[in-house]
């Protein structure tokens, strides 16, 4: 059972091809094959959310997705979101609010947050808490994370409203 599957996918905008063992989950693929170590394997059974990444624009658990399934997929990690500037406002809000301590959950939190930042009207604190209910943080008690996401969501919604007014 030493089958290797060739997969070609886009990761952070760049096409990559690799032979992978079928058992290799996406997070090990990203970390070990592509040295994208920003995403973490916290539990490897789908509970902690440290491995949250975007696949075809949607948040998924990297540990519950096999790399061999992703031929043709478009994967974005915290590294990609950082380099594109897509979450610069969110990262700044996290920084100023100190919405992280050890930082191990942070990439997963940031990626998970992207899924509700576009919401109109902006997500409430309760909605944010509910949305993050699958992302474990042992350090912060979550409040600062909720604050940072709430602030960013509001700012983005206000920015959009302003842009629409201008147009």
């Amino acid at each position, binding site marked *: *059972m030493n089958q290797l599957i060739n997969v070609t996918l886009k990761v952070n905008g760049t096409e990559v091809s690799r032979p992978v063992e079928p058992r290799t989950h996406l997070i090990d693929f990203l970390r070990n094959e592509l040295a994208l170590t920003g995403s973490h394997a916290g539990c490897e059974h789908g509970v902690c959310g440290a491995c949250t990444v975007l696949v075809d624009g949607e948040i998924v658990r990297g540990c*519950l997705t096999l790399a061999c399934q992703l031929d043709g997929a478009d994967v974005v990690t915290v590294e990609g979101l950082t380099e594109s500037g897509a979450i610069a406002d969110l990262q700044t809000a996290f920084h100023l609010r100190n919405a992280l301590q050890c930082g191990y959950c942070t990439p997963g939190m940031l990626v998970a947050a992207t899924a509700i930042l576009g919401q109109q009207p902006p997500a409430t604190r309760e909605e944010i808490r509910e949305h993050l209910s699958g*992302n474990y943080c042992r350090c912060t008690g979550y409040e600062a994370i909720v604050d940072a996401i709430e602030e960013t969501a509001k700012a983005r919604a206000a920015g959009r409203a302003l842009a629409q007014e201008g147009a």
Partner: protein
Amino acid sequence: MKAPPFAYRRASSVADACALLDAHGGSARILAGGQSLIPSLNLRLSQPELLIDISQLAELRGIRVSATEMIIGALTRHADIERSAEVRARFPALADAARQIAHPAIRNRGTIGGSIALADPAAEWPAAALAFDMRFTAVSTQGERSIAATEFFKGLYETALLPGEVLRSIHVPLPAAAQRAAFGELTRRSGDYAIAGAFVTASVTGGWLGGTRAAFFGVATRPLLAARAMRALDGSAGDAAAVAAARAHLEADLDPIADLYNSRATKLHLAGVLLARLVARLAAPGG
């Protein structure tokens, strides 16, 4: 915590998946959304020789409505159901239930068919299938057949699916005008498996309940209709006395089993509280 080695084949069609299943007998597993299978692989609780990946079969995805039923493709994801305007309009209780399944990232990959085929006794969809009297279509190289939900869930992770069969679609009868449904579950943390959960459906005419179906999950080795309790509610107004009578039957109907944190007595008590709350919602004017 790494999965054991296994081989992988991406099915090109449902027929291809069935042929692969036939060729590999019991050593192959169907990979749908993978949100239950992959953790069990990572934990080495499951060691199949082959995974047959059906996750990219578009023919298995989507929600359609016919004159008599809503047809949900087996690969339709929890998130699709959660966001479906069609589901929200016709079966709000199913839309509510979809939102309670695990967490957003899981709902983006987990599928209704996978959940039903796995028959996890703590999962929402199998109980929903009982309460809404759903039917499932299974296909194999031998053809296809329709299985009633009431005949489907045999035991712990045990279903009426035969070796070689793939679940293709879920069929939900469209509700009569008077039908009402309520869903609820008791979880200690958002997204956890429920200590007890239930769907209750009934036709409510002039305040009277008829054709009541109450399906429970998280309390026994499989999802269960509480048959005696249902009968006790039929013909009542869902009042306190009727609910008390129905609750008295739950022990016999459900025969609850303890979980890590909750004894049989707690499960039974909470199932009863849930039944009372859901019936109250059904029976409420405008409910």
